[in-house]
């Protein structure tokens, strides 16, 4: 017999986002079921044995497992139902919320819930997605996969590695592999500046004498059974390889750290609109997507550089999903009204999240968190200004802005609502919220 379980909130994924969402939803009074595909909760944090987690959230430098354990313990004490090694094979929205078909070792479970929280994280871009050529020998690993092998499975992926890309996981793996006795020949980044955090470049490459080659890429992999080497080449400003700069390097391992992609296959099947810039669902400040009853958080929404912010968005999503499910129960199934106002981020930004602010009452003067990344590196004092209805609400000067480093600020949503109400509502442009970047405060 197929089991049927009804609950208020289903959380998909038990990494830092899902754990925080589940805890917050239960603390808000909801019945919660967590669906996790792995055998343990904690997500990718389980394999992150380095420290640096929790500085923003706890004022502590924790390792990944330590950080995850805090949320896992909290969740256990709250008595959540967690389905482990469980997989969502089908997801659909219904009049009452959503229905999910899950599969685990006990069979097929049909879950119905008033709200769903997508905390599905992200995946690594592969060698084929960055168009590396050659045969397909063993020895090419995405950085996170190599991290899992070394830190969880106790396996050494090779002896002599070259890293393509300079994402944070790749930088951290440069250090980790060195400590495990591997020779790390260098990290090659196709862009003219690193993709990872500056502190990781210092602590993981510079401190170990590992060269970072900017404007350089891998054009071919050699070997048919195991990697025997790679060809690197320098690239011009348009990222085209410069003929004559090719160099053959002997190595048995190629580690790729060339970007992360939010995992949104379930979001798509639920009809959730996706932002082409973040590659995650468009959300409001409550982490509510544009599909009613579907919430999203963490790296499924946009790739964060700190787990602390992932947890923060999870807390918001869990709290909001619980409130949403409760409100629908109270009103006999009617979805609470939303008044979504778009946030327009100017050309200086790679993206800004949330993409919408819901101005429907009641808001109780709550602070909403905003995250953004600049499109380019700005080192001579960029000024970021947020306005609503033509009124400036926040202006902040940044000594430096770098695309790899996400910025965050908070704003009172009441202030936004008031500014919009005061604006000339006949002018559609005044009903928008804008985020602009300039050199001087006058913009």
């Amino acid at each position, binding site marked *: 017999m197929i089991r049927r379980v009804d609950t208020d909130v289903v959380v998909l994924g038990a990494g830092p986002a899902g754990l925080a969402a589940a805890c917050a939803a239960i603390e808000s009074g909801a019945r919660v079921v967590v669906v996790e595909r792995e055998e343990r909760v904690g997500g990718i944090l389980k394999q992150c044995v380095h420290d640096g987690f929790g500085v923003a959230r706890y004022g502590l430098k924790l390792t990944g497992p330590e950080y995850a354990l805090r949320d896992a313990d909290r969740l256990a004490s709250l008595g959540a139902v967690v389905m482990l090694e469980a997989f969502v094979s089908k997801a659909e929205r219904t009049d009452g919320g959503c229905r999910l078909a899950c599969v685990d070792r006990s069979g097929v479970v049909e879950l119905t819930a008033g709200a769903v929280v997508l905390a599905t994280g992200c995946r690594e871009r592969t060698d084929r997605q960055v168009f590396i050529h050659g045969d397909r020998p063993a020895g090419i690993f995405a950085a996170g996969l190599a991290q899992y092998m070394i830190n969880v499975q106790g*396996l050494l992926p090779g002896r002599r590695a070259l890293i393509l890309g300079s994402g944070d996981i790749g930088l951290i793996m440069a250090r980790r592999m060195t400590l495990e006795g591997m020779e790390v020949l260098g990290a090659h980044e196709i862009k003219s500046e690193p993709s990872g955090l500056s502190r990781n470049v210092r602590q993981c490459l510079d401190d170990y004498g590992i060269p970072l080659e900017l404007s350089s890429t891998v054009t071919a992999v050699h070997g048919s059974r195991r990697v025997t080497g790679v060809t690197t080449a320098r690239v011009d400003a348009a990222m085209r390889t410069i003929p004559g700069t090719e160099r053959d390097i002997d190595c048995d391992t190629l580690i790729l750290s060339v970007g992360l992609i939010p995992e949104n296959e379930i979001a798509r099947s639920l009809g959730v609109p996706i932002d082409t810039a973040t590659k995650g669902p468009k959300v409001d400040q409550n982490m509510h997507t544009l599909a009613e009853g579907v919430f999203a958080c963490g790296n499924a929404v946009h790739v964060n550089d700190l787990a602390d912010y992932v947890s923060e968005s999870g807390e918001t999503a869990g709290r909001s999903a619980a409130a949403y499910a409760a409100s629908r129960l109270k009103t006999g199934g009617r979805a609470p009204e939303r008044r979504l106002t778009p946030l327009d981020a100017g050309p200086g930004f790679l993206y800004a999240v949330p993409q919408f602010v819901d101005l429907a009452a009641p808001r109780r003067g709550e602070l909403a968190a905003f995250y953004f990344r600049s499109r380019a590196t700005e080192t001579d004092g960029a000024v970021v200004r947020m306005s609503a209805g033509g009124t400036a609400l926040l202006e902040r000067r940044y000594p430096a802005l770098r695309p790899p480093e996400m910025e965050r600020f908070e704003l009172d949503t009441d202030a936004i609502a008031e500014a919009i109400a005061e604006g000339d509502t006949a002018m559609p442009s005044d009903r928008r919220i804008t985020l602009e970047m300039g050199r001087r405060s006058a913009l």
Partner: protein
Amino acid sequence: MLVIPRRISHQESRPREPNARKAAARIHRLHGEGIAVSEARGSIRLEGEAASYGEKVAAGWTAAGFGFKGVVNDIVVAGVAEERLESPAVSDGLLEGAYFDVVVIGGGVIGSAIARELSRWDLSIALLEKECDVAVHTSSRNDGMIHDGFAAKPGTKKAAYNVRGNRLWEPLCAELGVDFKRPGSLVLFRSPWSAALYPVLADRARRNGVDGWELWSRSRVAAEEPNVVADQHGGFFLPSAGVLSPYKATVALAESAMMNGVRVVLNSCVTGLDMDGGSIARVLTNRGACRAGVVVNAAGNWADVVAGMAGDRFFSLHQRRGTDAILDASTASSQRHILGMPDFLRMHSRTKGGGLVPTVEGNVLVGPTASESPGREDYATRPGELAELEKHIRINGELSMSQVITYFSGVRPCTYEEDFIVEKSDRVANLVHVAGIQSPGLASAPAIAEDAARMAVEIASGFTATRPRSGWRPDGPASPEPRRLSPDGRNALIERNPAYGRIVCRCEEVSEGEIVDAVRSSLPATSLDAIKRRTRAGMGRCHGGFCTPRVMEILARESGVPLWAVTKKGPGSELCVGPTKGARS
């Protein structure tokens, strides 16, 4: 698809009386005086030096136009070393002293299909494959298309086998439990000029005996395929074109053969053939020498080398690389038919031009390219090839290069006549050659197998009683695919075996139970790639990023090897070099 005569002036269809003097004159005129032309045992042989592989191949094509039995092209290309068949590292006496009525060399789709056909007979049969699995080379490196047969040149073996094979695949797949779909192929016209060629196309389809063809108007095309570019002028629709998974089909054929008594010996490479008078007496391998009543040469890109081992090298193979790209599964709904928009002026008998193929698994495959390139097993992709594929992607407005999840190359084994060889050797009494099986070889495989098996049985009847095997069964060892069951069926399956409820590859929704089945099957998967071919674990959009460690664990556990000994594709392709410091202590 259409042969424009002026493009193939070097390949005339009218058979000629072989004339080495005329051939030499033409070859000297077109390719230089430095090439020595001789006639050897009915074949024409070329020797000398060429500046490039392309020139060597071009000389071979010219030589093919003079009606000889075959072209032996021994032209040396500067910088291109003669390739040697490399034996796997394993060396034992597994086959030493064994006797088989028939030895089939090569575990591709052709060898596997022949072995299965032969298994209908009460004979002792061995299938020797040098790799650690079947379908490792060309049979897993193609677009999976079962062509309609329209593109082949009328009167060739290719045309006849293709049309016959197309009809045989669907019932064969039903027997084996392998998916087969018949989306049909839509050849789009890029200009009113090409649309005007319809009578020529229809005539050709008629001559080849193709099962059905239709002229589709511009508006019909737009209605059937709304995502196709507006700049089309109707199309030529061939409803019989199908698709299947070439590696799954090959594995199923080999497993079906095994269920009917065929011995499949992997990691065994033929290193020589011991001749006794005009017959092969013994087949030498890295795993010992066995005696054979009949030998079937289905050695793919090495078939000319194997023919040479028997002193019967009457043809040379040249290699035509092809690259395909696979797009994300989300593209599946963007087109219903196989689509191509060939430039009829640039098409010839060596390539059908490629296109967009909706695969049986629900991705869109783009390709293949076609380029003459040395390297019998050179599967390295080149940057320019993807740019070439982009032109196909533009046919369907819903597709873009950003949807590419992977790409791969394959190598077509081609004779200079650009036709198949399916015949008994005329020099060696107990040898059957099945060579030059380039595209549409997959489509033709079941028909080729019928004929090749018949030839082998005819030879075998000279030394043993040949009668049908009693209790022959047509099916393959089907293992369940939980994702395709109804919720109730899936639930019941998981209740019987919880491993079917643990999803290991989430992109393709593959369970632990299916991977265990692959490792425990009669033709066991022993590497990550072998598991991929059987179950699709690791073939999705994350391309193994998440499931690789889990598949490694299952493979290590089920086959009793340490985790770090797990390979991607057999010995020498170990994924790891050993345990970490911490794991050692």
